[in-house]
């Protein structure tokens, strides 16, 4: 990421909900250049469990939002965007969302993102830490064919089994969306982009709203009995239980979609066309197999294995590294994700995690750890 601030005087940016976080008693931490809430009064455990049981509100306004518009009205932004990602974007229907990755020429992942089609345009949501680089990359690669209009808007996620009930009280039409669908709807006369997606493994929504209305909207949602404010701490444990990658940890420029077990997001047509950055390498990995693969790992004891923990086989040879690890509040046990040598990537393989110098037994496990409960169909 680009950091324009000198390291000695880090000036953190604030989202439109910053004042509300302080009012709600949040503990604030620096994250991707922003001053963000890591937890509120409920604490990480309580916030995590509340989201799985009812509904949690997350400020994700630090993420990047942009509109990709073709210069020639005959062109399709989705077709153009496929030059940069391995996902099936041009096949997206109007108002449908797809997960994909920006790849580099080695097939490494520059960032992961969500793309939504509206007519011949795309709406993109990318990670906060990568957004300047992503937007510069997209704008320069598609220069002369499309313009990228970066959106300075708040983004609020409402996640959990009660999210749909709550949001339906405020926004007509929200409940009609299915998982991975989006629509421009209205709240108090203001245009809001409502997307039925999220990063917790639960049903839920992300609502893009003008900065000046964000606090009033978030406050209205928080006033509902089902809703609690949730910080970055629980956001991380929720996504890890759901088996979802955290950019910069589980995926980065040194990992390809094949190694990251993200080939479900690379359709057959894109593999055959082989016209995304790094396609030759990714296709080679698909035909020859990868040397290492991202897997779920369940420690057998109670000690969490954190990011960076060495993974060994039963013979004591190093076979990989943990890239995300912690405690799963919904399971009451430690869980982890990481990369292991392909021959050790089968579910059920016994491995050892070296925690504080001591080997701890662990088992390669299917992802997600907690069943996803999206509103599909």
């Amino acid at each position, binding site marked *: 990421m680009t950091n324009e601030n000198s390291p000695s005087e880090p000036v953190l940016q604030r989202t439109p909900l910053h004042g509300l976080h302080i009012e709600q008693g949040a503990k604030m931490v620096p994250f991707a250049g922003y001053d963000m809430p*890591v*937890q509120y009064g409920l*604490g*990480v*455990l*309580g916030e*995590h469990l509340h989201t799985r049981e009812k509904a949690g509100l997350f400020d994700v306004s630090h993420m990047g939002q942009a509109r990709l518009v073709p210069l020639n009205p005959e062109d399709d932004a989705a077709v153009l965007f496929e030059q940069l990602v391995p996902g099936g974007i041009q096949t997206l229907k109007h108002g449908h969302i797809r997960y994909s990755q920006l790849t580099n020429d080695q097939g490494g992942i520059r960032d992961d993102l969500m793309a939504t089609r509206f007519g011949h345009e795309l709406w993109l949501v990318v990670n906060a830490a990568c957004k300047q680089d992503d937007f510069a990359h997209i704008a320069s690669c598609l220069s002369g064919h499309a313009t990228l209009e970066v959106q300075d808007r708040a983004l609020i996620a409402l996640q959990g089994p009660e999210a749909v009930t709550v949001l339906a009280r405020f926004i007509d039409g929200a409940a009609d969306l299915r998982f991975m669908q989006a629509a421009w709807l209205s709240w108090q006369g203001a245009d809001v982009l409502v997307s039925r997606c999220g990063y917790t493994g639960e049903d839920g929504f992300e609502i893009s709203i003008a900065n000046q209305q964000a606090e009033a909207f978030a406050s209205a949602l928080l006033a509902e009995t089902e809703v609690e404010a949730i910080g970055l*701490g*629980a956001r*991380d*444990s929720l996504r890890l239980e759901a088996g979802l990658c955290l950019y910069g940890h589980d995926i980065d420029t040194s990992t390809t979609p094949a190694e990251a077990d993200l080939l479900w997001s690379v359709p057959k047509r894109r593999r055959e066309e082989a016209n995304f950055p790094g396609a030759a390498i990714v296709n080679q990995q698909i035909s020859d197999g990868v040397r290492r693969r991202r897997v779920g790992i369940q420690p057998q004891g*109670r*000690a*969490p294995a*954190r990011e960076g923990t060495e993974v060994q086989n039963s013979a004591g040879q190093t076979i990989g590294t943990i890239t995300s690890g*912690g*405690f799963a*509040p919904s399971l009451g046990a*430690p869980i982890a994700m990481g990369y292991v040598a392909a021959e050790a990537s089968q579910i059920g393989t016994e491995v050892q995690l070296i925690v*504080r110098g001591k080997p701890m037994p662990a088992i390669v496990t299917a992802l997600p750890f907690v069943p996803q409960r999206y509103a599909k169909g």
Partner: protein
Amino acid sequence: MSKKFTKDHEWISLDGDIATVGITAYAQEQLGDVVFVEVPEAGRQVSQGDDAAVVESVKAASEVYAPLSGEVVEGNGALEANPELVNQSPDEDGWFFKMTLSDAGQLDELMDEAAYQAFVKELG
């Protein structure tokens, strides 16, 4: 006796020649929900400042240092099954380990309760 405190937010309570060591209410609040604790085994020799125990919240792992030099005589086994005791009762049931002291003079370097409270207040 009255408790002594370190700048690493540990408390030490001396009963005869056995010191009980735990982390303060302030420390557990900073950590958040404790989900795992590893305490030292009896018989382990520790020097002041050594890593003696591990305490992990949902987010992160932290070390608990030996506040004094000596020998561990008991780790709090209850924390293995109930790490949340550290949050619920940091000053009593959530103690980490008991130790004998090889240099009782080290006690004099530690803060008393009033000094510790002033220290915490300065942290904001």
